[in-house]
Each structure stands twice: as C-alpha cells, then as structure tokens.
C-alpha cells in the first residue's frame, strides 16, 4: 500500500519552517521593495525624459535651493542612522532605548516632510505648480510619491512606537522593527537617487534658451 510519508503537521503560522529560511514577512517586504523600485524607476525616467523639455519657466535653476535641500537630505540620512540604532537596541532586548530611537527616526522623518512642504510652498510662490510646465508636473509627482512613502513610513514608526508601550514589541518580535527599518532605508535610498538626479545634476539650458 503506497503511503506518503508524513511530517509533523505544520500550522500555517509556524515561524520556523520556511523553505528559504527567510521569515515570510521579510521575504514579502523584500519583494515589495523590489517592486517599488520599478515604481520610482518609472517616475524618475519620466523626470529625466522631460529634463530640458519645458516650454515655459520657472526652470529648475530658477527655483532650486541646493544648500537647503542638502540639509533636509542630511536629516533624512540621519534618520536612517537612528533607525539602525533602534533595531540594534531591540535586538539586544532594550525596549526603552529602541523606543527613543524609533521616536527620533519618526521626528527626523517629519522634519524632512516639513522641509519638503516649506520648499514646495516657496516654489509655488515663485510660480511653479503642477500645471505650470512639464518640470512642475514631473517634479511634484515624483517628489510627491516619495513624500507619501515617507509619510507612510512615519505612520508605521509611530505605530510601532505606540505598540511598544503595550508590550507588543520586544526582543522576540524584533522583526517588526526590522521590517519597518527595511522600508525606511529603501525610502532613504530612493531619496538619494532623486536628490542626485533631480537636484544635483544640472539641467542644461531649457528648450528655447
């Protein structure tokens, strides 16, 4: 009589038994982030395609304040550092320290967002809106998508921060913090690309001189 060999019944939510050795959520997060790369790839490609194509101003050189944006980029980069520290703390079992660093990350993220809001309102005052020209169109949609990702990340950070008070975050459940960290670092790396491509690489003279 043919039989199939049996293994111990594995409930669906068993953490240990995954075929790749990676926990489900971590694998899912990596896959999601890989997918998100293409999202930003399409947006950045749109921006690059339309570099120099605007028929009316204001043009990038007219509105960009590189020193200002460098500072806010540094703020975001610093938040990645605090994120790493938060993860290291929780992996040691130090919930209190981790909590501090999580809050710091969230605050730095909110500072970055505040900086973006200020930057955009000043652009609008200088005459650059979504509808002004293709520069405005592609710039705001690209940075808007990024800003939304940052905002979602801040929400996640604050949620984890809050849950830590209910005892839901500890050394055993450190993967939650790790996942938020993965997402946060991704958002940061995307910003480095955007900052370089959009702000730092100069656009040649616009169409029509």
């Amino acid at each position, binding site marked *: *009589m*043919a039989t199939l060999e049996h293994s111990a019944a*594995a*409930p669906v939510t068993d953490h240990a038994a995954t075929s*790749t050795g990676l926990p489900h959520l971590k694998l899912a997060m990596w896959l999601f982030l890989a997918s998100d790369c293409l999202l930003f790839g399409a947006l950045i490609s*749109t921006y690059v395609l339309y570099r120099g194509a*605007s028929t*009316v101003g204001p043009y990038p050189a007219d509105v960009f304040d590189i020193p200002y944006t460098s500072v806010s980029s540094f703020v975001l980069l610093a938040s990645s550092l605090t994120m790493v520290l938060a993860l290291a703390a929780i992996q040691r079992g130090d919930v209190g320290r981790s909590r501090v660093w999580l809050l710091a990350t969230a605050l730095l993220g909110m500072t970055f967002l505040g900086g973006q809001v200020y930057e955009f309102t000043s652009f609008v005052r200088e005459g650059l809106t979504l509808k002004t020209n293709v520069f405005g169109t592609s710039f705001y949609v690209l940075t808007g998508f990024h800003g939304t990702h940052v905002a979602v990340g801040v929400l996640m950070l604050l949620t984890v921060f809050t849950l830590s008070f209910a005892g839901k975050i500890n050394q055993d459940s450190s993967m939650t913090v790790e996942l938020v960290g993965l997402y946060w670092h991704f958002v940061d790396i995307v910003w480095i690309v955007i900052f370089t491509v959009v702000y730092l690489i100069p656009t040649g003279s616009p169409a029509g001189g």
Partner: protein
Amino acid sequence: MASVSVPAERPGGLLRRPHATTGFWAWFTTVDHKKIGILYGITAFAFFLIGGTEALLIRVQLARPDQTFLDAAVYNELFTMHGITMVFLVVMPLSAAFFNYLLPLMIGARDVVFPRLNAFSYWAFLFAGLFIYSSWFLGGAPNGGWFGYAPNSVIDPTRGMTFYAIGLLIAGIASTVSAVNLAVTVLNMRAPGMTLFRMPVFVWMGLVVQLLLAFSLPVITIGLVELLFDRLFGTHFFDVSAGGSPVLWQHLFWLFGHPEVYILVLPAMGIVSEILPVFARKPLFGYQFVVFSGIAIGFIGFGVWAHHMFAVGLGPVANTAFAVSTMIIAIPTGVKIFNWLGTLWNGDIRFTTPMLFSIGFIAMFVIGGLSGVMHAVVPSDYQQTDTYFIVAHFHYVLFGGAIFGLFGGMYYWWPKVFGRMLSETAGKLNFWLMLIGFNMTFGPMHILGLQGMPRRIQSYPESLGLAFWNMVSTIGSFVIAISVLVFLVNAVASFRKPKQMEADPWDARTLEWATSSPPPEYNFEEIPVVHSRDDLWHRKYAETEGGRVVPVAAGGSGEGTYPDGAGHAAQDGAGHAGGHAIHMPSPSYFPVIAAAGLPVLGYGLLFGVPAVAVGLVITLAGFFGWALEPSAE
C-alpha cells in the same frame, strides 16, 4: 466540509472574528485559498460572458460592409471594454483562480502565506471590475482602446477614460499584492523535500508570473497615474504643447503590456504541462528545459516592449534592437512546443476533454507564435501593425492559447474542486465547437489584415472586398458562443450529480491528487514529505529492472484510489494530525472592508472630494481592523 477549530477565547466587540463555515457569510468572509480560487473563477467566467457578448456585438456590426447597427461612440466603447474585460477581468483572474486553488495544494501547504491579503486581492479585483463597468451607466464607458494611447485618452471629454485609469489602478493593487503573496508562498511554504526543481511546472510558471506581475505593474501604475493627473488635475505628462510626449505613455504602457502577455499565457502553458503527462502516461519531456525557458521568457519579456511601437518612429537603431530581442524570445517560447511533442511521443494517449484542449492549445499556439515571428520582421510589420493581422495573432495566442489551456484546466481539476466530473460527451462537444468556431472567427482575420482592414474601425466599404471573410468570422463567433453555452450547461448539470469523487480519478502525478476531492479545509491530514518530482506518481508506480513500469500497490487498492492515511477525508470531518487539531486561519470581514474603500475613493475622484475622504476612511478602517483583530491562534 470539515469544521474549523476555533480559539478558546473570543474577545467581544467589533473585532470579533466571524466564524461561519457554510452559506453566504462563509464565502463573504473567507480567507481559505480554495474558496477564494472559486470566487475568482466564477467572477472571471461571468466577465467572460460579458466580454464575449461585447465581441458578438462587434462582429454583428462588422458582418457586412457599411453597417450602421452601432454608432461610432458605442462601437469605440465596445471594443475598448472587450479588450479591458478579456485581459484584466477574465484571463488574469481565471489564471488567479487556478493559482489560488492549486499552488498551495501542489506544494503541500495548507494555505497561502497571507490568507487575509489573499481575500483582499479578490475583493479589490471584483470591485475594480464593477467600478469599470459602472461607467456604462455613469457617463460612458472607456472608449480610447484598452491600450489608451495618449493624447486621445487624455483629451476625450467623456468620463470613460477616467474610469479606465482608476479601475485599472485598483485592479493593479489587487494583483501586485497577490503577486507578493503567491510568490512568497511558493518560495517559502513548500513541503519538506520539495526543492525548487521538484515543483510541478505549473508552480514554476506561477512563480514566474507573480514576479512578472510584481515588476511590471508598478510601471503601468505610474502611467495610469500620469494619465489620471493629466485628465483630472491639468498636468502636462502627455501634453505636447507643454513639451510632453505621447510616446512616453506608450513606453510605460508596453513596459507593462509585454510582460502582461506572458502573464496571460504562462499559466495556461503550466496547465498544459500538467495535463499532457497525465493523459500520455509519461512525464513531461525535458522538465528543466521547460522550466528554464519559462524563466528566460520572464527575463527577456522585459526587453521586447517596443515591438508594439515599430511604426512610432523610434528610429532604425531601436527598431533593430527590438526586432532582434523579439526574435530571441521566440526561441524559449518555441522550445516548449517541442517538449510537449516529446511528451506525447511514445505515450499512451487518452483523449479526455482536458487532453483535447491541451492538444488544441499546442496546435493553435503554433499558429499564433508563427504570426508573431512575422511581426518581428519590422518592414513587414509596417504593413501588419494596426490591422486585423495583429488581431488574428493575439487571439490565436490568447484564445487558442490561454483560453483553451484554461478550459482544459477547468475540465481537469473540476472533479478535485467540486467533487464531480464534468460530462465527457458534452466536453468533447464543447471542445470541437470551440475549435471550429475559433478558427472560423480568427483564421480569416489573417487574410483581412493583409487585404487592408485596419483595427478599431466600425465599418468598411464594399469596394475593399472584405465582406466575405468578415461574414465568415461573424458566423464563427456565434459558433464560439454556442460552445460556451455547452460548457455552461455542462457545468450546471454537473452539480446535479452527487458529490462523490475519489481523490485521484485521473491517475495523476502531483500532490493535489493525494488528498480528497474536494480537499478538506486544511488540505492535507499530514503535510507530505516529498522525495522526487511527480512524488505522487512515484508512490504509485515503480520501474522494474527490465524498465517496465508497474504499480507499487501491494495491498491492492488499485489504480486511482488514494493512499491510506494521507488526505483521507476523516469520517468525523474534523482534521486531526498526529493527535492534535489543525488550526486554520479564521475568516475575517476586514479584507472586504479595506477593499471596499477603494472604489469609493475612485468615485470621489470622479464626482466629488467628499467621497475621496469617505473611501480613505473605509480603507484605513479596514486596515486597522485587520491589524488589530485577534489572530487565528
């Protein structure tokens, strides 16, 4: 159906999880991959009937020259909706139905990795389809073609293309999320001993398709967002007067659109790769080649998109590059055909309905593939593009290919899913009518295209000499309609039969046949340990020294009965494995709620901001409930 063991403590209030196991609520709140698969299947089939009706209307209009049965506005809506429906609301979800139902079973798992996310994907898909179709009653259906080329799709003054953009964005969310879910399931939840190269080909194709979805959908997401912003917010993404480029839309669309066609056909190729070995009684010829060619198609599929744009004026360098890459991708696609032929060679072929559809798939896909290679010859494509020659090509691969494969799958797995067989007699009638009707409808389109009939035209003059083949094509489309009716009758009639099916009626090779028909909610009593590819087959048959294949059964259960102890439908209905109950995830309301907010948000973008806020609140409430409700354990 087996009952589910429920947690001992049940906190009260809003977050109490539902517990229905039968009836409407069971289906509404289910997180069971099998129920979700059935939901996808029924919904997709309903859209198939609607999309088919749209096609029949088009064919009636085109049956004779200069007809005025449909005016231009309605005609443009019909061919647009036919394309959107068949691609996004039929073939994709029908494939999803098979993946959802079968992937966990074939890898020896109890469910997918994230069951509630799975439910969310289904409901988001359903709501996306309903949303797009509501446009017929709310200002006009999409009318810019399923491919929605800008600037035409931007400047069209009716609401249709806004419905298009929002509806496809919602469907895209459903598919992206499902892709991550199923990919992680295949990678992470395989039974012990099931290495990647012991997975059934259908599972491999499933994995490749999920990765294609995950990487191609973001691109069209951005395209659709840009289209939506141009239509709603006055941006200039495709606005030529501001320096925008309509060709950008085409690049973004086809960067998704080409992997999409492999998303549409690889599942059916996987199905055929499962059916042929079972009914030829020998393994798939060249498993590794078939798997590697599937992977190759996945990769190269991202490098051929501009072959849809040969006439746009990208220049000879681009056209040359894409002609070459398109010819290259023909190789792994063609190789599979030879592997399937090798499977049939020296087999013991039984012409069951699933086998007929699989053979039909091969025959029709060869034709579609050959016409595809003809398009790759760019100077000839300058004549073929945007004519009925192209329409013929893609219907041969998508209907003669994907749909035939999916129908074969339905006949093959019907007994597993529903515990009854579809009638073989009706099945054969279904097949032959469909084969004849299909070839009558789309064969002549090769000729029509070469004789000068462009696409997307609502009529043609008598003087062009296109009347005869158009009439043949229209008659053929009604033969297809009859064949679909035969299937419907067959399906409905099958439910009159008693639900009494053995685990392995076809003497098959893969793990889903090792458990009862239909499987219990927890799929397997005990998760099997896998020792080889086609593990079930090797438990039933062994090879003697002389090379003869003989049944292993030493207790004489005979061919077709399931092995004792594995997947035997327990008499008392409760799953017991090694002495303790199997906990399955509880049903949940929140995936439906989270999904329901999305179309509300969509209506808000169309009709007024308040609905946007309402939609967001509903979706966020859904997500919060989801995060906070008690878990299954």
